[in-house]
């Protein structure tokens, strides 16, 4: 659990990047495990990139779906509504989901590489 953050911080400003590689234990990783200030910064950066991915896909969903009721109300023809709602939306939803999962997994992969310094 958290130790004195100030003390930790001093150690980390000059991470021994290559020296301890053989031990299999790297600096940023320890920072995260012990949740020092630097560890918090790492976690925050991951959260920010994940939130950005979620908000991007969520925004696309909003743009895709949001105007539809207005469009249907404007177009008096019911067939458009039948086609779009009955058949048209499911494939885009699945594609959006796959796009998001790929982005989220890449974010995590990049993050793991960063903290393990590979």
């Amino acid at each position: 659990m958290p130790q004195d953050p100030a003390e930790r911080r001093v150690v980390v400003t000059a991470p021994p990047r290559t020296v301890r590689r053989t031990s299999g234990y790297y600096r940023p990783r320890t920072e995260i495990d012990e949740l020092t200030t630097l560890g918090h910064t790492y976690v925050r950066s991951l959260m920010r990139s994940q939130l950005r991915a979620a908000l991007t896909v969520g925004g696309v969903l909003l743009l895709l779906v949001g105007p539809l009721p207005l469009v249907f109300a404007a177009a008096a023809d019911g067939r458009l509504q039948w086609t779009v709602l009955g058949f048209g939306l499911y494939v885009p939803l699945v594609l959006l989901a796959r796009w998001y999962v790929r982005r989220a997994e890449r974010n995590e992969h990049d993050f793991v590489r960063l903290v393990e310094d590979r």
Partner: protein
Amino acid sequence: MTPTVNSGYAVPAVALVVVATVLVGAFGLRMSRTTSDFYVASRTVGPRLNATAISGEYLSAASFLGIAGLVLVQGPDMLWYPVGYTAGYLVLLLFVAAPLRRSGAYTLPDFAEARLASQAVRRLAGAFVVGVGWLYLMPQLQGAGLTLSVLTGAPDWLGGVIVAVVVVATVAAGGMRSITFVQAFQYWLKLTALLVPALFLVLAWQHDGADRRLLDEPAAFREQRAVRVDETLDLRLERPLDVTVTGTVDGDRYRGEPVRLPAGPHRVQGGTELVFAQGDPVPVADRGADDGMSDSLTASREQRPLYATYGLIVATFLGTMGLPHVVVRFYTSPHGVAARRTTVVVLGLIGAFYLLPPVYGALGRLYAPELALTGDADAAVLLLPDRMIGGLGGDLLGALVAGGAFAAFLSTASGLTMAVAGVLTQDVLPSRGVRHFRLGTVLAMAVPLAAGALVGGLPVADAVGLAFAVSASSFCPLLVLGIWWRRLTPPGAAAGMLVGGGSALVAVAATMVGRPTDGQAGGLHALLAWPALWSVPLSFLTMVLVSLATPGKVPPGTSAILARFHLPEELVGGQVRGAVPEIDARADAWRRVGDA
């Protein structure tokens, strides 16, 4: 009298589904030994099997019967329901899926406690889980009653009792592991039961000359048809209508005389027969709190269609993540990455299923338009095979659909019972262990069964809509802010859930009690009947403002917990596990009880 289909094949089909469910459940029982098996299937369920189980659990009576009925009565606007049920999973995936799995929480109260370290918030979340679960269970039992009475003319309560008994038996005996198998099995059963008859129905429609009027607005009679009105109903005509009446309309008696009814409301006495000519538009019954899943809130939709549509979109898109049986399922994924992948498969599976109900709705408008008038629109899926194909083929297809409908009630009801019983066992009943879980199961099912019997005529779609609206206004802000916002405090979370979820609950309850009469303030009624559009922002706002006002109450372990939510498992490796000691201790306690 409710229209019946030939029960010679349908009753055996329903019996077969029930027996198969019990057998698959018993198969699971043999494999479920310890308590951790019992609850979470030891987290060994793979993404595909888990996704199929989630889909099987999610596709309820409202999906199987309700959507087609709603589309038949109210037209394509109602297709927002299946779209919302599916898109709700996308929103869940974006903001909740992986962190929720990594939180290690089994139920929403577990999540609330892990994140906020507050027993009060935990208990509040538990109360909402039980409330939403019971609201969602009631329509399943009512749908079962409707199906059985359509099939056999049995009393309305019988189907609900059968479903209740089977579900309590499977859940109490096998726990989660058997439920996983049962649910996965029932997804394929439901898909088959809707897909195969749909193919034949579309062939029959093409054989009939592929009448393209099935998408026209409003639905019209394609041939002269006599409709017998069994119970007194009110009609609202947009234009004058010529019909031949035998019976009593607006207090006047007729004997097979042609009558011109002016535009406006009309009262048709029970027992009256109306003969409509070819091409007449189908009038829509203007009913209040009556039976059936399809005729709810019609009045408010007509008064505020756009507002109602957006209210429906918000409730379904954001409400899915808070449904108790959905959340529990994520715990069975081995890790966060699997939870995400599982959700994508779920989107594909339920999206494929939802292509089918609109087909039934559209064909129903063409071949059984009078169902909109007699209020049995939910029976459309069950009746169409007989109506369009007839003979032995129609009977067999009708039996297949009936079996699928029962699978729908059984699977959703099991998932909900599991979730509600979990909360009851952990938070309400005194000591823990498998025996108390069984007691919790009985309790979880008994209350909605009794409530359904007492309230009786509560419109089913209202109950489902209420469940989504309450879930969207209480759990969605809790989950989203809890996962992404460091400054959330226990008082903020409690206030947001109470204000948002509570006001949504009160609003919809008020519309159910006070049905709108002619000329009543339509805007206010629509606001209350579709609360999500204002109650969700209200809940978020309350949570944020109260949290900002109580900065000293941010739980001390927040950073460690958020790290646990978001870090990939390969980095954590048990290090941050201690961040949520209460939850880990509980999981250990379950394990010890099981090993003993």
